[in-house]
């Protein structure tokens, strides 16, 4: 049996055992006879809430996924619409960041002077939690939608910027000298030599960025609310509905994985062997 097959089998086995343990650890209380008014008001005779068993989560997931695009008013939309809003915000902020980070990264990587001059700013701004920008963004931009996009922008710019600069600065000197002997201009060198050479490093930065952006959008939407998967989690938290919370956690994981897979596919295209 090939390794992949065996690994898949082990994965399924782990999942199965985990679900079994989870299901048996969270028994659903038996429905008793009719409750008195007092018991009804107290939320049933049963003691405290518990984590729902996986069978319930799957049932809930089926309900949600069978009608992912319903729209029952501004505060109640299907999971598909919510994920759509989140993806729109992430991709907008991310592309804006890429448009700025990659050219700027080139400049920094090609010029040791700019590298040294901008480095202090990058080092100070980079470790700031993107959500810390939110109050300032809301105040200056005066629009919660754009503020959320700005937060994505600011969190995804740094890995791309630093990786681009690093990749550009570390293009092998031989190749640059070859370009010189062929009398290529600086622009031509940038596009025909440096860009292909640095592309794998740049793509790695982009892959890190999209991961961070997807992590941050959930928190940002929990903060500003309205729409998106983050709002969905918040709204269900509001109702202490763990079924929906677990379901949305899974959805966030799946979408994050798909984003990562897409970028890793792109980065395979630009890989090269020296």
């Amino acid at each position: 049996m090939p390794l992949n097959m065996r690994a898949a089998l082990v994965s399924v086995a782990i999942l199965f055992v985990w679900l079994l343990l989870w299901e048996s650890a969270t028994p659903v209380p038996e429905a008793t006879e009719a409750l008195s008014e007092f018991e009804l008001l107290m939320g049933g005779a049963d003691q405290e809430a518990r984590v729902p068993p996986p069978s319930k989560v799957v049932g809930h997931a089926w309900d949600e996924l069978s009608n992912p695009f319903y729209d029952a008013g501004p505060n109640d939309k299907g999971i598909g619409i919510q994920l759509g809003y989140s993806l729109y915000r992430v991709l907008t902020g991310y592309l804006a960041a890429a448009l700025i980070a990659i050219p700027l990264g080139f400049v920094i990587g090609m010029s040791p002077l700019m590298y040294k001059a901008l480095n202090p700013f990058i080092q100070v701004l980079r470790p700031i939690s993107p959500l810390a920008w939110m109050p300032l963004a809301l105040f200056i931009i005066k629009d919660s939608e754009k503020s959320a996009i700005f937060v994505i922008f600011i969190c995804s710019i740094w890995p791309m910027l630093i990786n681009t600069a690093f990749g550009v600065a570390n293009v092998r000197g031989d190749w640059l000298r070859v370009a010189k002997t062929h009398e290529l201009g600086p622009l031509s060198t940038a596009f025909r030599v440096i860009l292909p050479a640095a592309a794998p490093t740049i793509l790695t930065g982009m892959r890190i960025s999209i991961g961070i952006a997807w992590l941050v959008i959930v928190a940002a939407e929990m903060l500003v609310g309205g729409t998106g998967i983050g709002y969905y989690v918040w709204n269900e938290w509001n109702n202490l509905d763990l079924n929906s919370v677990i379901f949305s956690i899974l959805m966030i994981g799946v979408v994050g994985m798909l984003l990562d897979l897409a970028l890793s596919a792109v980065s395979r295209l630009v890989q090269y062997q020296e």
Partner: protein
Amino acid sequence: MTMKSLGDPFDSKISLIHDSRCSCEQCTGKQFEPGTKSHTEALEAQADKMVRDTRPRESEFSDAEDVMDRAIESAIVRGIFGHNDASRRRFLQMVGGASLAAALGSIVPLDKVKAAAKDSMGPLEKKKLKVGFVPITCATPIIMAHPMGFYAKHGLDVEVIKTAGWAVARDKSLNGEYDASHMLTPMPLAMTMGAGSTATPYIMPAVENINGQAIVLHVKHKDKRDPKQWKGFKFGVPFDYSMHNFLLRYYVAEFGIDPDQDIQIRVVPPPEMVANLRAGNLDGYLSPDPFNQRAVYEKVGFIHTLTKDIWEGHPCCAFACSQKFATEMPNTYGALFKAIVDATHYSAKAENRDEISKAIAPTNYLNQPEIVIKQVLTGRYVDGLEQKVHDVPDRIDFDPFPWHSMAVWILTQMKRWGYIEGDVDYKAIAEQVYVATETGKVMKDLGYEPPSKTYENYTIMGKEFDYTKPEEYIKSFAIKRS
């Protein structure tokens, strides 16, 4: 459930002010038959009675039109008597309500004013509005106006947008994403003064609810019912500039607990209260419902006291918008305001509360089990302590009138706890932010001086609050920051 602020202005037995010593019929509940000493007096009493019999009592109002009519009459009458309610009642006792109504009718075209207030509004400047709300039962009128069609009735297409917390509601209102929003009564005051945000003139045309909050403690503290035992506790309040914060501080301070030294008060958004209580991050909270009732329902907390028992009739949440919105779009503002008054009036009626619970429980609005909302709104609830069902119909109530004295009280507490410093012009701010009614604006258009003063004294936990002496009031507290 009556709205005391809408008492009949032509009735000498009803106070329009209703302070704590109010002796009017509405407050004492007893019928007052004037002694008939002479023939004329007897006749007047009779005429007076006729007025009362033909005029609708506030409990009989059928719709918003009646409410508007009454608000206008009340405003004019209050204006004439310079807001001196005692002299209004004396005068009415002397001449009778019918005479005053007739006399007034000859100098002020009452019907025209009323019609003007209702009809003079031109076309709506903007029909599609966004109104923010934080998902709590205080926002009931703002929310239920949507599913129950109150906005549509006034020609508006309103989207009610759920908001994660008050800081966001404030910022979204400040940046114009919301045309109007559900807020806490202290917020428009703080925003106007620039406390905690940039100073932007805000107005608060209507209070949403009175009462309706509670102090909830973790079930492990069932034996610590005396606030003196609360040293070291961590409490949650929904916002710095909230009645919750001020009432909790007031409450514990009355028991000798310094809210800044002896306990820790944290700002926790209402939806996160129960989760934090369960996790043990909080020992208790003073929060809006349904999260008090939800803690009982989840069996993690019990209701220590309803805020109604701290200050009966205290204001809590409000409907607010920027002054800019009101001046730039007077017709839209007017229609929206009418819809809110209408909805608030409807919410105040006990018999509608079941229906409202059903309407606001779904995901699009509060996203809570209906049984929890119903316990809050009908006041038939369990407290998590006793094995019985309580019956407190006015656990939460709805009365739109923005009393200026409430604003003064809030400002005294803001100063007491150091949220604002220096000299405060209590009355000026109160009157700027708590606009009496949209009625005032319409009357101004017609050349009348709109009434804006509405003050009363309060007794909170047995301590008198005299609105004329805010500074002395602050000084009278043993525990304070200023």
